[in-house]
């Protein structure tokens, strides 16, 4: 008997970060008093006409480029007809025939191996109003109606819940990073649906798919997929058939429950939207957007890796745009990237997190960090002194040299003074000297540590090291 293999496709709706709505000039907002950011177009009053917001197309081009899509250069919109109170005009303006992007992909890393999750298409559409279901009535808030969305549809190539989570996290990172969407699942600016079917391992024909709608978090996407695979296997193993239906995730029981038997594509009676003329994307427009695109996380990761920055620091930089910009400026100035990234994602990030502020809220400047890193790199200061200087840099305008002066952290560069200290350290640590004579390299490191301890980190490490080796060789 052949095995049942899951096939998963994911649809993500992401609200675009524009100022105005897609077809009207009311504001694109969240969390405002209900029905205050609306006008006749959002409400679908008879006789009103939609006009297209260009910023929506700009952001959608950005999304299509960021997701490696082929752009549809001659686009129009379509009407998707359905009858529901969240859409008073009876149809949603969307793109069916000419989605802005097709043939894209997002690259994920599954257990060390790279896998491309194919994007079937990205299309632009308007959001519907928000329905709140009370006990006996439903309440409608049209502030959300007409907020621009992109829907990103994957090919059915996701193998399991783990890949689904990796895909969603990557997608979120890209949309957030490129400034396309806030992608806040808890506020509904990113919403996920998963299509799941099972097929026989020796067959190319996909099984009947079940759609799970509006899953409220990435971890719930994983739970709902795992549950749905198990449920479908049980149904099939009992000799029953899977019915094409829409289900929703029940968070309390970590299961999925039936919502409705699906209306099919034909039922939506798509036809071209005659009220909005063609949108033609020319090279000039596309180039302009390309120039505005930030370096995307994957590329950033690669270049940081080339500079020898470690993975933990890279992730910290990618998750914090301000730090990332700061780091890039340091790299442009030719400052040692490894030392800089360690300082920035270590002590600096620790300070920012502790005080819940951004790097821009501190008195740190690229120049000051450059001075600090250079001093550390040239062994003019020890890492301990570096930490001490840094602690003063967050809230003073003083230069690194001034801080050193003020705190009495000046380095000991006097050969005679250092020699005296080294002689004392050698005298006090005869065990280490024996080790050294027996060829143990680490004893030099130990002795250096003792010198730094004795000088409170103020000995010039390079000079002290040279003098120590010289002293040791004369023993």
């Amino acid at each position, binding site marked *: 008997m052949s095995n049942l293999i899951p096939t998963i496709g994911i649809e993500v709706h992401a609200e675009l970060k524009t100022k105005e709505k897609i077809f009207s000039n009311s*504001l694109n907002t969240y969390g405002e008093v*209900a029905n205050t950011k609306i006008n006749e177009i959002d409400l679908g009053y008879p006789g009103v006409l939609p006009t297209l917001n260009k910023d929506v197309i700009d952001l959608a081009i950005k999304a299509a480029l960021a997701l490696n899509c082929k752009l549809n250069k001659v686009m129009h919109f379509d009407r998707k007809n359905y009858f529901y109170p969240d859409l008073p005009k009876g149809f949603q303006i969307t793109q069916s025939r000419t989605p802005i992007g097709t043939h894209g992909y997002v690259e994920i890393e599954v257990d060390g191996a790279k896998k491309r999750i194919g994007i079937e298409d990205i299309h632009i559409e308007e959001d519907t109003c928000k329905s709140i279901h009370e006990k006996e009535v*439903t309440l409608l808030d*049209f502030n959300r109606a007409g907020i621009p969305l992109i829907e990103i549809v994957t090919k059915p190539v996701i193998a399991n819940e783990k890949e689904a989570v990796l895909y969603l996290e990557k997608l979120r990172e890209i949309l957030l990073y490129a400034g396309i969407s806030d992608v806040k699942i808890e506020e509904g600016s990113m919403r996920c649906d998963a299509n799941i079917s099972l097929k026989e391992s020796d067959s190319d024909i996909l099984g009947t798919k079940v759609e799970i709608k509006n899953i409220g978090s990435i971890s719930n996407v994983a739970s709902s997929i795992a549950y749905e695979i198990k449920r479908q296997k049980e149904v099939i193993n009992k000799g029953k058939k899977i019915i094409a239906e829409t289900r929703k995730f029940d968070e309390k029981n970590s299961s999925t429950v039936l919502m409705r038997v699906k209306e099919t594509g034909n039922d939506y009676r798509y036809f071209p939207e005659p009220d909005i003329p*063609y949108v033609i994307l020319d090279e000039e427009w596309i180039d302009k957007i390309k120039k505005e695109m930030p370096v995307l996380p994957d590329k950033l990761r690669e270049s940081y890796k080339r500079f020898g920055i470690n993975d933990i620091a890279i992730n910290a930089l990618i998750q914090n745009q301000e730090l990332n910009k700061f780091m890039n400026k340091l790299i442009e100035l030719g400052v040692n990237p490894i030392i800089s990234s360690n300082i920035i994602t270590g002590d600096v990030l620790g300070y920012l997190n502790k005080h819940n502020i951004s790097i821009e809220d501190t008195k740190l400047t690229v120049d000051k960090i450059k001075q600090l890193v250079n001093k550390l790199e040239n062994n003019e200061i020890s890492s301990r002194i570096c930490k001490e200087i840094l602690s003063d840099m967050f809230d003073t305008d003083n230069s690194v040299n001034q801080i050193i002066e003020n705190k009495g952290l000046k380095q000991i560069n006097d050969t005679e003074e250092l020699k005296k200290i080294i002689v004392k350290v050698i005298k006090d640590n005869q065990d280490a000297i024996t080790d050294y004579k027996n060829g143990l390299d680490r004893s030099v490191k130990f002795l250096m540590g003792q010198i730094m301890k004795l000088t409170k980190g103020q000995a010039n490490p390079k000079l002290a090291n040279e003098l120590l080796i010289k002293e040791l060789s004369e023993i």
Partner: protein
Amino acid sequence: MKKELTEEYVMHVAHLGRLKLTDEEIKKYKYQLNQILDEINKINDLDITSKDIMITPTINNNMFSTKELNTTDSKDILSNTPKTNGNYIEVRWLKND
């Protein structure tokens, strides 16, 4: 290609529009809709393989909105609504959303 509209189809379309039809109405609309479809089917006799679809008669492309904000006072909107609940528009309970 002529395809006759069945009574089941009429009932299905009525369901999509949330309409309740009597048996008589179903028969009536089946006849009328088939007549309309017969007319539309004439298009199938034309050779349109070399033609692009036309979505709009206007020859202007890339028409975008201006940026002047336009928000309607919610009092006006709500006063046009059969039933309100605070600042919300109230409708009958919609299950299975």
